[in-house]
């Protein structure tokens, strides 16, 4: 089979931005559906058409008899093969000593279905068309039951119970901080404001539809699973748990990945089904989702409601913050959804501000929707959205300048390291620097004149800012390790866990080596998830790869330098001199080269990327259409390794935030049907939505890891969602619109401006 990615090539005279690019611009990359094992069979998944129903009768005899069909799998077959449920990654203690109640998703539904799109059976046939044709012959009788579509419905007294082990559909009632202290602060505060944000359900939408291929080798007993992932070790562990197959008998291989945004770190039913089918049938089995079925089956993002309150003194100093959150888990706990609803919302709930008293309580609730899981930021953008819009709301309500209100509440430089009232330790941030520069770049002071000029043209201008802070991923395993070997040409190959999906790991890691060892970046390769190597590490996620695996690479370089120095001295190198690795290593023999092989290991926890984003918008009141006329992002991302890639990540993140603010919304109707089940109904950002992001980085190095970087993957949307929303509300409040949920689609903006129409 052609299961090996095309080798890296480059042509002279072309200034490639990244080492990854040549194969991707010539169509010679290796995305999972591009792999074509000989004799491969094709799966088609039969899904629930109902949001909540009892499965009364399943007759698949006609499916089994259809042309080309090899096997039809139901829950029964999965259980016989030892398969079970897709694992939940995190649990947390609840309020008042309660224990979290978790419902995990069975690989195939048995007895009942709990969301539209839930997998019920899989047909395996010679061709994808035969599998789909056969699936249409399935005779499955359902008894439809009343669904619970919103968290409010799910929490209402007498609501239908989705899971017998979860009373009241409440998986977890989480809390963080000091409720009493916050209550006392509110009781004596002269000024208070309350503002609720609904961070709506979104479809993550990596451009590559989910795809899996499994191929079993009866000789070795090992099943190879080809799939997009964010790092193979986490995926392997979860597939082993869900399939009941020992992890030693599975090998996960990931080549090119067409976007992840959090959606490729956890397995889905199809991962388990193709592994079981390949082992049962002795032939490779593949499945590639159509976009329509990906819409109804892929874990969705956000789905959080954060009801925030702030207590202020007469000068605008924050006395306390409180958030009451509702987390829509969907029908089951998938991957990190509890982490999002508990840890990720609470650790930075004070944002960039000195707040003496903090309290959050979050209800994590099951509903009849697609399970919620990580999507770019995984709770971080949501809490920044809530804090930064709450402050604007309070500023408006009590007559403060939104810039001044932020400035007087910033944690001052001398207060670092700063421990928040609920226990998070920030190392060092320079909020005034990013704010000052963003105000300057955006000509904040000149806005009134621009607004008046726009008004003369009949347009409504608004300006808004956000001074966000986020906590990057702490890491799910204790350390990141990498290994490095030189070949006879002196090329260094680094093996690690974290796998890229557009971030450019190959490029950034090679740059780190060039800076550390003086070995040209063109002589360094990176290979993620190499079978047979005992590596530990985190997948790509939580903005942490550059400093997580990157710190391990800094360590690796230190080991290589030491070992090279010893070998150099032994072979007669002058004391105090060092070899030029690029020319020296190719002259070594194999045994000498082997002595340069090394491992790097580093423990790196959360960092605190932060910054100020300013957005300026213009609404055409005749149509409700909004243009973003200016966007400035001044970020503190720590040390920057690859400036072009950092700006690329930032621009992409800002525009994903634009999508949430202006167009994206996964909407379920009252029967629990996904109304926005295709690109006909679910709008994604298109070219031109934000023409330019004016981006600068202040590069305040952190000491929390060996690279000095803080991470960039999630900064863009964490800043842009509140900045764009505040800009919209700045314009809309002047027209008497007091509050409005995202997305600000043209139709909704027009309706808000024309309430009588």
């Amino acid at each position, binding site marked *: 089979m052609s299961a090996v990615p095309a080798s890296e090539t480059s*042509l002279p005279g*072309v200034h*490639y*931005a*990244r080492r*990854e*690019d*040549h*194969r*991707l*611009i*010539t*169509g*010679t*990359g290796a*995305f999972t*559906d*591009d792999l*074509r094992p000989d004799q491969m069979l094709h799966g088609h998944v039969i899904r629930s058409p109902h949001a909540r129903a009892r499965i009364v009768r399943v007759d698949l005899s006609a499916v089994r008899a259809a042309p080309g069909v090899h096997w039809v799998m139901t829950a029964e077959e999965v259980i016989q093969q030892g398969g079970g449920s897709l694992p939940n990654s995190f649990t947390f203690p609840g309020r008042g000593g309660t224990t979290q109640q978790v419902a995990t998703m069975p690989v195939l539904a048995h007895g009942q279905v709990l969301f539209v799109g839930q997998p019920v059976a899989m047909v395996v046939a010679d061709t994808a*068309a035969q599998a789909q044709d056969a699936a249409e012959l399935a005779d499955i009788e359902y008894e439809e039951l009343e669904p619970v579509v919103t968290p409010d419905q799910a929490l209402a007294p007498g609501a239908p119970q989705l899971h017998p082990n979860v009373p009241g559909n409440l998986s977890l009632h989480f809390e963080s901080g000091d409720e009493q202290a916050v209550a006392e602060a509110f009781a004596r505060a002269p000024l208070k404001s309350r503002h609720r944000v609904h961070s709506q359900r979104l479809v993550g*939408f*990596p*451009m*590559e*539809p989910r795809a899996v291929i499994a191929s079993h080798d009866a000789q070795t007993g090992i099943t190879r699973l080809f799939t997009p992932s964010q790092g193979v070790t986490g995926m392997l562990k979860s597939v082993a748990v869900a399939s009941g197959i020992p992890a030693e008998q599975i090998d996960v291989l990931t080549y*090119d990945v*067409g*976007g*992840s*945004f959090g959606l490729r770190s956890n397995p889905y039913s199809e991962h388990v089904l193709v592994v079981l089918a390949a082992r049962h049938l002795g032939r490779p089995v593949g499945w590639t989702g*159509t*976009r*329509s079925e990906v819409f109804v089956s892929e874990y969705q993002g956000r789905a959080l409601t954060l009801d925030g309150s702030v207590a202020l003194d007469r000068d605008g100093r924050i006395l306390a913050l409180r958030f009451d959150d509702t987390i829509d888990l969907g029908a089951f706990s998938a991957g990190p959804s509890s982490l999002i609803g508990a840890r990720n919302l609470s650790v930075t709930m004070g944002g960039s501000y000195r707040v003496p008293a903090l309290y959050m309580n979050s209800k994590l609730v099951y509903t009849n929707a697609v399970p919620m899981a990580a999507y770019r930021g995984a709770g971080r953008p949501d809490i920044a959205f809530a804090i930064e819009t709450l402050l604007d709301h309070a500023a408006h309500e009590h007559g403060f300048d939104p810039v001044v209100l932020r400035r007087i509440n910033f944690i001052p430089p001398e207060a670092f390291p700063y421990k928040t009232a609920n226990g998070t330790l920030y190392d060092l941030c320079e909020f005034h620097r990013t704010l000052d520069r963003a105000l300057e770049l955006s000509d904040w002071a000149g806005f009134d004149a621009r607004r008046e000029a726009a008004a003369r043209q009949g347009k409504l201008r608004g300006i808004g800012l956000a001074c966000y802070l986020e906590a990057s991923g702490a890491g799910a395993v204790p350390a990141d390790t990498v290994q490095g070997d030189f070949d006879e040409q002196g090329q260094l190959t680094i093996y690690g866990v974290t796998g890229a999906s*557009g*971030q*450019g790991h190959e490029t950034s890691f090679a740059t780190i080596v060039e800076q550390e060892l003086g070995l040209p970046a063109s002589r360094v390769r990176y290979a993620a998830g190499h079978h047979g190597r005992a590596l530990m590490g985190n997948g790509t996620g939580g903005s942490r790869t550059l400093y997580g695996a990157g710190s391990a690479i800094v360590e690796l370089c230190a080991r290589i330098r030491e070992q090279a120095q010893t070998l150099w001295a032994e072979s007669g190198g002058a004391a105090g001199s060092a070899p030029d690795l690029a020319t020296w290593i190719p002259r070594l023999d194999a045994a000498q080269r082997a002595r340069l092989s090394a491992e790097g290991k580093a423990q790196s926890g959360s960092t605190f990327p932060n910054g100020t984003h300013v957005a300026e918008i213009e609404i055409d009141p005749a149509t409700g259409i909004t243009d973003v006329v200016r966007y400035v992002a001044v970020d503190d991302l720590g040390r920057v390794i690859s400036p*072009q*890639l950092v700006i*690329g*990540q930032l*621009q*992409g*993140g*800002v*525009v*994903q935030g634009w999508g949430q603010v202006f167009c994206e919304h996964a909407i379920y109707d009252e029967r629990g049907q996904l109304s926005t089940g*295709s*690109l*006909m109904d679910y709008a*994604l*950002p*298109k*070219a*031109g*939505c*934000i*023409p*330019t*992001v004016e981006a600068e980085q202040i590069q305040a190095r952190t000491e929390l890891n060996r690279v000095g970087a803080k991470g960039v993957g999630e900064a*863009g949307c964490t800043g842009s969602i509140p900045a764009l929303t505040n800009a919209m509300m700045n314009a809309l409040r002047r027209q008497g619109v007091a509050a409005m949920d995202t997305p600000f689609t043209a139709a909704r903006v027009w309706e808000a401006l024309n309430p009588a129409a």
Partner: protein
Amino acid sequence: MNISIEVNGKAQSLEVEGRTLLVEVLREQLGLTGTHVGCDTSQCGCCTVLVDGQGVKACTMLAGQADGCRITTIEGLGGQSLHPVQVAFTECHALQCGFCTPGMIMSVTSLLSRHPNPTDEQIIEGLAGNLCRCTGYANIIAAVRQAAGAMAGSAA
């Protein structure tokens, strides 16, 4: 049915079903997997190829409709070197995950054949049928401008 098409300069005679899409022929029968499938409603543009020099979403065309046509896919665009649009995409960092990239490059090639010196409006209109989830499009727009400049330079 039997169809005769020319793909990247090579004549092909193929047996296809009536329901077979052009994109299926390219990916599955001819192994040209650089043309990607990103949706099933003809909106993402990942499968864009040139049919007789015009950008076409290969998922919107039945293989039978392509009978007698000349098809260019990403694999055949640059020949042994790179097409100026390919060069511009890497130099401007106009790709991250790269899944939308072949379709983007084919659409931009088609756009520049219609408008060799496109205005911003023509660029945005020309990209309206192609979605990218990674880049935020700013660098793609920059790549279109760079490619237009390079092609004008080489034509002069």
